[in-house]
């Protein structure tokens, strides 16, 4: 009994230690990564890694770089496609790609805070602000300066570079710097299901087609009894802004400090869309378009004839079971569409920053950009002009190449205020598409609410 008691006492004392050690071991194995693959860790810790001697390095000499993005596999496959040429050119680096499809920002930040097992973060203009605010990204300015003979930033449109600086977010405490580099550009077009268009007697719209053309087509293409709709409106701000711009409206004031979407032009544009959604029922029901909606139907499932999307849609097209085409967006009072980009940021606390920079500097260099272009991906403007997206289908190439250099392309409007983010704005606007709110009442009210917040200093 006495022995049992002592043993029990020892266990009692040891148990917290064991548990703590177990937790510590988990953290310890992940955090102080040496920049090598697991099999190489022991070698690294016991001494210098074996010399490559000019030949292909052994597994012990290979640095593994973890890259994360959020886009579905069928789209993100474009990213995987340039990993191979990179790894061939840089055999001492292996890229491991991970898709985080749900709650991307939250998951990445959690991982950076905890395991710190991510080296490169794909970021688009709508999530750059969150990463900057969290202080997650490394300032690339000294690295760019060091490799200025390799990377020509002048090849990239300035607005794509600005998306990764605090130019867009002057109120952030993050200091000035270049916190990421754009890897690919996207321009937004109107994509059509030509099977549906043909059945209704239409051909692919030509540049200069009007809002009236779009409205009449949407109505004629709708047959709710067949679950068929003219247009796929997803209450997504990016395509919505294209309509605003086409009506001569602006999302942000010139100084970028106030929202201006509730101008008469903005109200008219949103009213045009709401009428087609509610009165004419020519748009896909909004229930179907909520993010993650189960069994949702839409353009991809062949239930909507048109959708406004970027050229990344080409990757989705491989799963479509219908014939498709794409066209310039319809012309309102003017021509306008959206241009955005997807870029890479280096985890500020990554232990493999040198290797991560080699990945970034390669893919943003002319060599890397050409590798992207040969895989249907739109590179920066200069390489685009040079290569012309030779591998892309004719209809994509013939539209995307000239459109990407067209002055109608407008950059992604950005702002960052907790509780008043773009996602929060989209949530407020959702009630437009159920008919619950009037455009003329809701837009000014929401704009006023957001502008009050934007006028305040960042908490």
């Amino acid at each position, binding site marked *: *009994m*006495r022995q049992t*008691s002592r043993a*029990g*006492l020892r*266990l*009692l004392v040891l*148990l*917290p230690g064991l*548990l*703590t050690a177990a*937790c510590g071991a988990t953290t310890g194995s992940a955090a102080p990564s040496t920049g090598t693959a697991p099999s190489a860790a022991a070698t690294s810790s016991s001494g210098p890694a074996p010399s490559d001697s000019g030949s292909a390095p052994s597994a012990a000499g290979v640095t593994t770089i973890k890259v994360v993005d959020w886009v579905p596999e069928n789209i993100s496959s474009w990213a995987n496609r340039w990993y191979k040429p990179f790894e061939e050119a840089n055999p001492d680096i292996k890229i491991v790609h991970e898709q985080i499809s749900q*709650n991307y*920002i*939250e998951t990445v*930040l*959690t991982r*950076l*805070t905890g395991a710190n097992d991510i080296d490169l973060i794909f970021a688009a203009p709508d999530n750059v602000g*969150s990463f900057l*605010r*969290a*202080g*997650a990204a490394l300032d690339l300015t000294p690295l760019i300066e060091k490799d200025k003979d390799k990377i020509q930033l002048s090849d990239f449109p300035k607005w794509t570079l600005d998306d990764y600086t605090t130019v867009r977010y002057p109120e952030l*405490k993050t200091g000035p710097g270049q916190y990421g580099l754009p890897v690919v550009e996207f321009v937004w077009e109107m994509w059509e299901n030509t099977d549906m268009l043909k059945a209704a007697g239409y051909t692919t719209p030509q540049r200069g087609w009007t809002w009236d053309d779009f409205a009449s087509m949407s109505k004629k293409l709708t047959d709710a009894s067949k*679950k068929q709709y003219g247009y796929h409106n997803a209450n997504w701000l990016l395509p919505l802004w294209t309509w605003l711009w086409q009506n001569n409206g602006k999302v942000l004031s010139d100084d970028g400090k106030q929202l201006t979407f509730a101008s008469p032009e903005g109200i008219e544009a949103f009213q045009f869309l709401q009428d087609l959604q509610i009165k004419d029922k020519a748009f896909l*029901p*909004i*229930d*179907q378009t*909520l*993010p*993650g*909606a*189960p*069994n949702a139907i839409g353009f991809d499932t062949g239930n909507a004839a048109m959708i406004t999307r970027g050229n990344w849609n080409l990757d989705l097209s491989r799963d479509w079971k219908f014939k498709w085409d794409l066209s310039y967006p319809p012309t309102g009072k003017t021509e306008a569409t959206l241009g955005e980009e997807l870029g890479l940021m280096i985890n*500020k*606390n990554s232990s493999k920053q040198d290797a991560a920079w080699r990945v970034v500097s390669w893919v943003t260099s002319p060599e890397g950009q050409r590798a992207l272009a040969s895989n249907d991906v739109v590179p920066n403007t200069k390489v685009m002009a040079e290569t012309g997206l030779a591998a892309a289908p004719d209809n994509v190439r013939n539209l995307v190449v000239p459109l990407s250099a067209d002055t109608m392309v407008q950059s992604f409007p950005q702002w960052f205020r*907790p*509780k008043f*983010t773009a*996602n929060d704005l989209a*949530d*407020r606007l*959702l*009630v437009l*598409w*159920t008919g*619950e*709110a009037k455009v003329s009442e809701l837009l000014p009210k929401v704009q006023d609410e957001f502008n009050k917040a934007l006028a305040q200093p960042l*908490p």
Partner: protein
Amino acid sequence: MSFITERISRRRDLQGLLFVSPFLVGFVLFFAGPMGFAAVISLFDWPVLSTPTFVGTDNFTRMLSDDLFWKSLGITTLYTVISVPLGMAAGLGLAILLNQKIRGLALFRTLYYIPAVVTGVSLAVLWWMMYNTEYGIINGFLKLVGLPAVPWLTHTAWVLPALIIMSLWQVGAGIVIYLAGLQGIPTELYDAASIDGANGPAKFRHITIPMLSPVLLFSFVLGVIGSFQSFTNALVMTNGGPSQASLFFVLYIYRNAWNYNQMGYAAALSWALFVVILIFVIIIFRATSSRVFYSGSSVKGGI
């Protein structure tokens, strides 16, 4: 002699501690520790990866002028006030039905309990499909009986009722507790009441409810705590929308932590929620102290 007794007593204490140590360690590491950590970081402005800045009680005073703090607290309180009593009534009603001697009782009990073991996200996806305005089974039924389709999850007035109705789907866990309580009520009490001429409702009011009162209190308190912590359904199905009409308090905490990178404020909100729940629980115990009947004790309820 007293020395030996003392040693035996100490040994027993140690053995007792040993047996409860898994809980104690787990409690310290996974509850008390994080709570203490949250209390500390609630005093800082901490954008997750940057250096925290000490701000004192600013995060707490900020809540008072934060519209969304009050809005999310109001939505969560309304949800709790409606869903908990409704869920208890439904659970108790079904438990009484399942306490009857009818054929296939085991099957019915199993069927009612199954939803309680389905994971939250699966349940949310299932209900999301059922609530679809155009193609959902619920609106399909409404259309069959000549009623208009309801935009369950996309209308500010309907989204909370939709989530409350959905919460009833999980009454199975409560049913099991109520059934255990019902079966613990001595049948002699009902027999005696019958001899005295009491009818069904009178027996329910004067025997069933008082005898079940500890179980009801337990269920009520847990229900209130659980309701204030509602999160998954709103995150998966509505993400707090439309127009923040389903912005539950915990979802607001989550957004502050991970969407807005305000970990310190999120921690302060978490402590505020703890205090709110604590106040509700104290009110419940105080309000029911004279109404809860503990058959094994001469003292009536209360804490």
